[in-house]
């Protein structure tokens, strides 16, 4: 082999192992799933033995009220949780962005919740939500209030609280990093011009943080659709279908009802939903950037 050939092949050699693994265990399975979603597929069959049923799986899901219930639970869960986490996380970052000692210790303690296994988070929160000996109800009783049936009566609220506990720090850390990398000159100028803290936040800090905040929100939103274990341990999707998010329903359809074709079709619906969301967010940021550029341009024209 000549030296030139070697250097032309080098990038491919660097990329080959990763590409091979991803093709084998990521892209091929997803293609396989799309193919399988058009089949009547039982877990004991290999896919070549299954029967082609066309769009039947998709149509059946489309007509299935339970599927739509899961679908809406998923959307409600993801959007509520992300909205609350953004509000709390950004708020705390704005509040705690000061020169205080021990900030690094604080940050260490705050990232603890997200490093712990979701399964364990579910375990602890299930204990805390327990109706008789759970921490919350014991506290409520200690101050003379009635206990609340958290997981029985307010299941969706309970799983949301657990998720907010685990993931608000993520948004807090990222917005704090964004805040601390803001240009000091702009803040300084605002302060000299006599802007109140509120005015500084609304007119300077938030707009400057916006690009990072949007990426953070997108990442968190994508992750919110991946949440499964916490809910599985906390409520198992119940009572009824009140907390059965799509990911959980896919797992149940595949393993309890043994309908792999239907589970595959459901996975595709979820993928399409995520794709639309991601593309929508990207389009939105593009549009906003373009608008900002246009406004700036117009302002310069006038000036």
């Amino acid at each position: 082999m000549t030296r030139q050939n070697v250097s032309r092949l080098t990038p491919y050699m660097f990329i080959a192992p990763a590409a091979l693994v991803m093709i084998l265990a990521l892209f091929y399975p997803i293609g396989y799933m799309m193919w399988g979603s058009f089949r009547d597929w039982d877990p004991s069959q290999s896919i070549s033995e299954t029967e082609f049923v066309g769009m039947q799986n998709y149509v059946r899901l489309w007509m299935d009220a339970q599927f739509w219930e899961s679908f809406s639970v998923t959307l409600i869960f993801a959007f509520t949780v992300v909205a609350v986490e953004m509000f709390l996380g950004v708020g705390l970052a704005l509040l705690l962005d000061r020169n205080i000692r021990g900030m690094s210790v604080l940050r260490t303690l705050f990232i603890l919740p997200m490093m712990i296994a979701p399964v364990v988070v579910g375990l602890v929160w299930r204990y805390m939500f327990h109706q008789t000996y759970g921490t919350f109800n014991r506290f409520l009783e200690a101050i003379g209030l009635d206990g609340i049936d958290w997981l029985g009566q307010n299941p969706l609220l309970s799983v949301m609280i657990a998720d907010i506990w685990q993931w608000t720090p993520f948004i807090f850390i990222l917005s704090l990093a964004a805040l601390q990398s803001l240009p000091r000159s702009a803040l300084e100028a605002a302060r000299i011009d006599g802007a109140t803290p509120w005015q500084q936040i609304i007119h300077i800090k938030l707009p400057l943080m916006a690009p990072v905040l949007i990426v953070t929100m997108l990442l968190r939103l994508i992750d919110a659709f991946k949440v499964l274990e916490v809910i599985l341990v906390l409520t198992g999707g119940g009572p009824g279908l009140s907390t059965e998010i799509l990911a959980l329903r896919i797992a149940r359809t595949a393993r309890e009802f043994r309908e792999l074709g239907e589970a595959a079709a459901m996975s595709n619906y979820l993928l399409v939903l995520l794709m639309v969301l991601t593309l929508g967010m990207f389009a939105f940021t593009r549009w906003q950037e373009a608008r900002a550029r246009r406004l700036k341009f117009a302002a310069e024209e006038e000036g």
Partner: protein
Amino acid sequence: MADTNYERQNPAFYALIALLVFMSIGPVLLLLINSLKLDVDITSGAGGLLFMPTIRNYETALCDILWYEPEHLRFCTIRFGGAFVNSLIIALISTALTLIFGCMAAYALVRFKFMGRDSLSLSTLAVRMIPPAVLLVPVFGLWNNSFCLDNDYGLGAWIRDTFGGRGDVCLAGTHSGIILVYVAMNLPFVIWILQSFIVQVPKSLEEAARVDGAGPFQVFFLVVLPLIKPGLAAASIFTFRIAWNEYLLASALADRDTMTVPILIVNNASEFDGLGTIMATGMLLAIPPILFTLFASRQIITGMTAGAVKG
């Protein structure tokens, strides 16, 4: 609300911080405390912080690898020790493989101009949004059927030659089967993070090494890798965390002998009599991530911000 602009803060500010700290580590402390209590004490709630700590729950959890037989146990039902070893093997090997493959790919994507580069980096980004639940069906189907060792042709044969396995029929139920999914699942994220670190390595360093006669692989392993150590540390913690904590795909693939700790916890969580024991297993599962957090929080935060801010 606390006032700004002063070095000395309002007492309300410190109260708020104390409350936040309590809220974030409270549940973890609760887990630790309960894992040291007897079941009776957990449910009765008497005493609060005043109780006699016992390691009995840990003895029950670890009974299959203890060198002595705990007195209070008649027989050993929870096989936690074995699951712990499985989790360690799977998490460590998949982290190592993901990092090696990931940093090579990231390097190629940043440094070389070649066909398909843009589409590749775009697709690694797109793949990040795929939830594990979506992979459940195909992985279950493939690992049990197509990726089997009795396939004498194509992918099955290739996997048999490359990964080995236990001489069993399928990839499902082997450590390598689970490792393969985890590596594939984590690669996009690792590539994305490491890219942002490799971009910062000055090109002149590499050129100098090349002038001295180093080949591309030598340049990569001896010059570039040592410079992106912080990135590697961050990426490895995140990969380890996901592989260590993951439940869904492992539960679809593992059998009795390759079961990981999260599966064991979910399987036993519904039995209410072993509340203390299950808390102890939860605590044991949480220990490695807690250690990482305490000793490498700077790397974790670097990795998190590199993923979002520079993305």
